């Protein structure tokens, strides 16, 4: 059995002459919870759509569960649950009819689990989907995705529109899925605290590239933000590579560096700073640093 559930090789995507993805390489192994992050328009949804075969790639290859995305057989699709951005359901159907359709088309259907979800979310059966609130649609979408006991769950901003309680319920559900053996989740969200809670591995898209692709803990260790105070002025050139961001205020400098290691530490120490303290960063902080548009040093008055 192929260990990589999701595989993206040299993916390039153009929309009307505008490049969105420029050579993305990504693998998600079985049982992994992968958080794919990026700013608006970075291409997260595009990657997911290409993976699901809804959108053709301009160049490159993508595969799900060992099958090329352009040739996903129904049997493979039946093992994938998906919550799409915007909760694209058939709007004019009643909830009951939509559920019946999904149930009839599914390869497997967990009635018990689905019924439990519907009860928990208290979804009205006789109402049309378009008459549901955004949150209810999200709940319905999620329930439908979970009901098929998916081997791979793809969630594209699934908590959009959910209130705090519903979001927590969703996360608990996701954890429930995780606990099942060999289940894989690809998770995109702008609520990074949620991602931080459940993701094992993080990917960050910026300027068409996957600039970050590593385990979450490793990310926190490798991206460091330091507050450095120099005795005199800040040196013009620190001879440090992989500077993500640099802010200077008088003799004080806040610098974010990727792949922090002893060598870089030693280089910094050669400038004999008065102090050098690490500023702890959450995933959100790292994300903001990594996706800043202009990495040039900024002088703050």
């Amino acid at each position, binding site marked *: 059995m192929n260990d990589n559930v999701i595989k993206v090789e040299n993916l390039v995507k*153009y929309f009307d002459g505008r490049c969105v993805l420029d050579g993305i390489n990504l693998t998600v192994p079985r049982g992994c919870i992968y958080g794919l992050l990026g700013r608006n328009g970075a291409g997260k949804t595009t990657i997911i759509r290409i993976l699901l075969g809804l959108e053709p790639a*301009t*160049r490159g290859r993508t595969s799900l569960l060992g099958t090329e995305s352009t040739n996903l057989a129904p049997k493979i699709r039946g093992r994938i649950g998906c919550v799409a951005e915007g909760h694209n359901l058939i709007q004019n159907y009643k909830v009951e009819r939509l559920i019946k359709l999904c149930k009839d088309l599914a390869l497997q259907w967990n009635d018990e689990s689905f019924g439990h979800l519907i009860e928990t979310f208290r979804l009205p059966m006789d109402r049309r989907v378009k008459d549901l609130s955004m949150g209810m649609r999200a709940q319905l979408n999620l329930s439908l995705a979970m009901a098929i006991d998916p081997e791979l769950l793809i969630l594209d901003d699934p908590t959009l529109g959910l209130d705090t309680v519903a979001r927590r319920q969703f996360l608990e559900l996701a954890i429930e899925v995780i606990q099942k053996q060999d289940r894989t989740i690809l998770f995109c969200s702008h609520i990074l605290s949620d991602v931080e809670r459940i993701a094992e591995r993080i990917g960050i898209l910026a*300027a068409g590239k996957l600039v970050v*692709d590593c385990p979450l803990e490793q*990310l926190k260790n490798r991206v460091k933000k330091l507050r450095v105070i120099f005795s005199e002025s800040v040196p013009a050139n620190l001879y440090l590579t*992989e500077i*993500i961001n640099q802010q200077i205020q008088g003799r004080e400098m806040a610098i974010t560096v990727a792949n922090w290691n002893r060598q870089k530490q030693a280089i910094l120490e050669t400038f004999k700073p008065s102090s050098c303290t690490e500023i702890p960063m959450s995933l959100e902080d790292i994300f903001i640093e*990594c996706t800043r548009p202009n990495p040039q040093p900024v002088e703050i008055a």
Partner: protein
Amino acid sequence: MKLSTNYIVRVLATGFVVLILLSIPLFWARLLCNVGLYLWMPYEIKSAAIEPSGLLPDNLENDPNIERHSRVSAKMEIEPLLPIGIIEYFESTSPGQSRSCLILSSSEKDWAYFDNKSGQFVFRYVETKIMPDSDKLKREVQYYIGPEGISELPDKTLGRFIEPIADNSEFKTSLWKSSKIILYDKKLRHFFAINLKDRNITKGPQLSEDDTHRPIDIGILNKNDDILDLYWMPPTINNQSIYSRKLRIHITERDPGYRPDRYILVLDKSGRIDLLDKETLEFAGPAGRLPTPATLFPTYKNATPDDLLAYRVLPVALKEDHKYRGLFAATVNWEGTALALAVFDANGVPIKSDQTWTSVRRGNRRTHSSRAVLFGFPGAPAITIGKFLLENLHPPILFLASYFTAGSFEAASGHRALFLLPNSFVAMKGRDARENIAARFLYALLLMSPSIVLAILLALRVSKDAAIVGLSRKTRRWWLFGTITFGLVGYITYRLTRPKITLVTCANCGKPRRPDTDICHRCGSKWDVPELIPPAWRVLNG
């Protein structure tokens, strides 16, 4: 980009769809041009007449009291809806018509048809028998008729007809039940005479394989008679026609009183008309032939029934002796622009003839109507040029095929052709029997030159665009060849199947390049996306 099977299939499918959807409006546009020509055709070039007719005895024709001699006239009235196949479809299923197995349908109770399955004719009618006590006994009867006999029950021993043609003239009256019905089987090569009254069938001698006779019609010989009128008027005396009970002269073959003597007419595939003896069922000699009307590019060969849009043959017999005197024959050419009329005596010798002519504006010169219709009248040249240009919008390959298949179509069906153009100027040249093959072909190419020039111009455009979108050289060559061959159809097909990709500017050569290829198809440089400025650092795990 290499050719894939999917791409080829898609191109062929699109090409076929485009061919059909382009051919249809071109057909209607050409039809409109033809309708214009037919409607504006002056009366003088639609009719021909011969006076005196030449078939009456001298004592009648040269009577000193005659005011006006006998006259035979033919007039063509081209039906604009002639090319409309649906009308022809339903008309051809009427009794006696080409597609119909029905040979009679005079009422709910009287009908007759040919059953392809059993190879026998089935006649059903009400038979009236006069009993000894003078009472009339009516009963419905049904007969099955094969080459070997007649039976009231289906019977395989009656044999099978294979490809019969029947003389429908008998069915114009109710006398068919008591008279002979003549038919001919093209495969068996026998004539048969069916006598329903005596319940027998007479078989004539078989025509040998080397016998040149190839009958295609018997009895009333006409084709598309609604566009060709042929009528005959007796001599007039003191403003009255010579008309008496004693000497009744029959005007048309449908005249109920017309009873020919022992002969009926048989039309041959070659256009020759023969007399058939109804008693012996053998040929009794020639009766004449279908006259050859003029065409735009003259042909010297004798016109065959397939070459003619319409024909009509009118035999003449006098009531006093029912003796066959001769026949009048009128024909309309393939294009519907000329009419020929001829008179043949009882021995089949042509004695008189006429064609449709006109005097055109330049110097009172007489011109065949086939040319005058197209160029001789106000508005006609413009319509003719329009028709010519419309023909040249067709794919050159089909245009060329029209030249080579010019003689293969039947005239009326040629008016309904969609893809090949048997009525085009090129096809007319293909039927031209005058010149040698090479000269004729070169002339045809000249007529096709607008089509060829258009195809070449479009092909160059396609080739240029194909290079821009990065199609491989082989693919471009195929498109060039395809567009030259299929002209406008090829061009439209290319536009519909062209890869829908927005080209981006190559950072190396500055020209538009395809984003879906690994290297620039123009300069070969690798990919670069200058508008995206990703950071130099990466945090990747292995």
